[in-house]
């Protein structure tokens, strides 16, 4: 177990170090892509905590992502809050929303849980359209560069700077990864896995299964909202497309592709899928085609995903 801890720290540290070094060799386009991938990977990591580790399939995570997104966008452009304040506010509201939604949705299980999350998310999406006056619907809110330049602890931070943005995304990714590792490797994480494996058994060992699930929903939703807020602030945009059903499916796809229930899986899945869609969009306007094909192929032939397969074949200690 002790040896595992060192290996795990080394591996995940190495991945972060590689990402840090990448900025010195990558061109502008790759750097921007990597920034996006890192932010979206945080979203996928949050999703993975619920789906991969706890075994709860949500089709409504876009509502958590959108919560962060719109709190950030509306908070900065309409209410005039500063960027650091709005970021913390988005995380707090994300936690509250996931607590409320989790408390309700967890009364259902299995297919019903999936449909409940889908319905709540759809209601949130429609609400964003309905209040188009404030959210500007699918046209979206653009956050001006002047808002994204602010003083923080005596420094001037400019989120329009590509290098700064890259390193901020990396720092957030590192934190998210740390949170996931800490949870997954703790006794609590073991209980989440136990619930995924055999819920009635976990109950009959005296675990309050509903509370553990609620914890998973809240952490998962909060990470998603954090990613949403970061996305809005870094890329200066919040639009209703990012709250649509597609954006609930994306993290599921990234998680499955990278390997459900592996800490690095969502990052790998997000990166690979980003590249696939990027290449595919050179040939066709139907860029969700790749998403559909990959999902079907994964289910048919590659159920464990990239890192799930790595763990099965070579590295059984992979968290």
């Amino acid at each position, binding site marked *: 177990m002790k040896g595992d801890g060192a290996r795990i720290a080394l591996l995940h540290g190495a991945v972060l170090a590689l990402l840090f070094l990448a900025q010195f060799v990558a061109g502008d386009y790759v750097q921007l892509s990597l920034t996006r991938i890192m932010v979206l990977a945080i979203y996928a990591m949050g999703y993975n905590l619920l789906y991969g580790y706890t075994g709860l*399939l949500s089709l409504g995570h876009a509502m958590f992502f959108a919560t962060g997104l719109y709190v950030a966008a509306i908070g900065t452009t309409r209410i005039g809050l500063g960027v650091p304040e709005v970021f913390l506010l988005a995380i707090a509201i994300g936690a509250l929303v996931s607590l409320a939604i989790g408390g309700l949705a967890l*009364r259902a299980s299995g297919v*019903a849980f999936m449909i*409940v999350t*889908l319905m*709540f998310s759809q209601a949130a999406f429609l609400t964003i359209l309905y209040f188009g006056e404030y959210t500007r619907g699918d046209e979206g809110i653009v956050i001006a560069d002047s808002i994204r330049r602010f003083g923080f602890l005596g420094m001037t931070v400019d989120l329009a700077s590509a290098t700064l943005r890259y390193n901020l995304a990396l720092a957030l990714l590192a934190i998210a990864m740390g949170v996931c590792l800490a949870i997954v490797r703790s006794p609590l994480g073991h209980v989440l896995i136990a619930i995924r494996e055999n819920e009635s058994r976990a109950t009959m060992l005296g675990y309050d299964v509903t509370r553990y699930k609620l914890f998973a929903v809240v952490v998962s939703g909060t990470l998603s909202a954090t990613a949403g807020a970061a996305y809005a602030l870094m890329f200066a945009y919040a639009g209703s497309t990012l709250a649509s059903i597609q954006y609930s499916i994306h993290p599921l796809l990234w998680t499955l592709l990278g390997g459900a229930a592996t800490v690095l899986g969502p990052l790998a899945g997000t990166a690979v899928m980003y590249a696939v869609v990027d290449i595919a969009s050179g040939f066709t306007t139907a860029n969700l085609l790749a998403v*559909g094909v990959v999902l079907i192929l*994964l*289910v048919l032939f590659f159920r464990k995903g990239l890192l799930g397969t790595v763990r099965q074949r070579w590295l059984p200690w992979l968290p």
Partner: protein
Amino acid sequence: MSFFPHLLLAVLEGAVAAATLALTALGLSLVFGVMRVVNVAHGEFYMLGAMVAWWLSQLVPAHPLLGFLLALIGAPLAVGAVAFATERLVLRRIGYDPEATIVATIGLMFLIQQLALSVFGADAKPVNAPFTYRIVFPWFGYSGYKLFVVAASAVLLLCVWWVMSRTRFGLIMRVTQFDRETATAFGIPVGRVYSAVFVAGAAIVAIAAVLLVPIQQAHYLMGLDPLLMSFIVVIIGGLGSLKGSVIAALAIGLLGGIVSVFFSPTFAAIIATLLVAFILVIRPQGFFGAPAR
């Protein structure tokens, strides 16, 4: 307009909405009822049916009725074939695992949607109704075709009910629904029943699309609404209960039709989706379904 004509219009619109709901949800309800899997691509089967109907109708632009009749045969065949391929190549291989089926049919949803975009383009495609008879009330005129849709969906529902409750195949389906293992023990070829049910569900929703496309227009993104509405109907009716689905469709359709005369459609949709979510939260088995065993 005074109150009574207003109410009459609302009831007519409600009846059309109820028929639409019942038609689109019927196939999903059948598939979930017998196979216990959720087909997320259900809405795309609907869209595909509408596209085929459009394609056939523009082959014979001068004769809307001929195009309609062609579509009534061609659309269920084409969509049924897609469903058959899906069942054989994907669902069967993953053993109808509920979660894997959801993920795979999500994939299929994007696949069909994007292929339709590539083949048919992004513009909406109007389809002429097979006839344009207009019923003239003293206060307003109303499309005779819409009322035909109501009648046709009633007939289709009766047909499905008859097959389920009065025929040998219906009996086989009900046994399979009750317990897959018992069915196997009785010598029922469960695999073939699943194939047939999945194809039938797709064919029914394709027929629904042919009937409804003249009042909706065909578009590659048109599948999401019927999918969500079907979820709503099937859930409120009780997952897997055909009777419940029909009653739910009637109730929601009539209510929704009436509400939409007074409120904005988006607002009505928000209320409807929230309502479903809360119903599932309070009563996960719906109003007519049996609790999970």
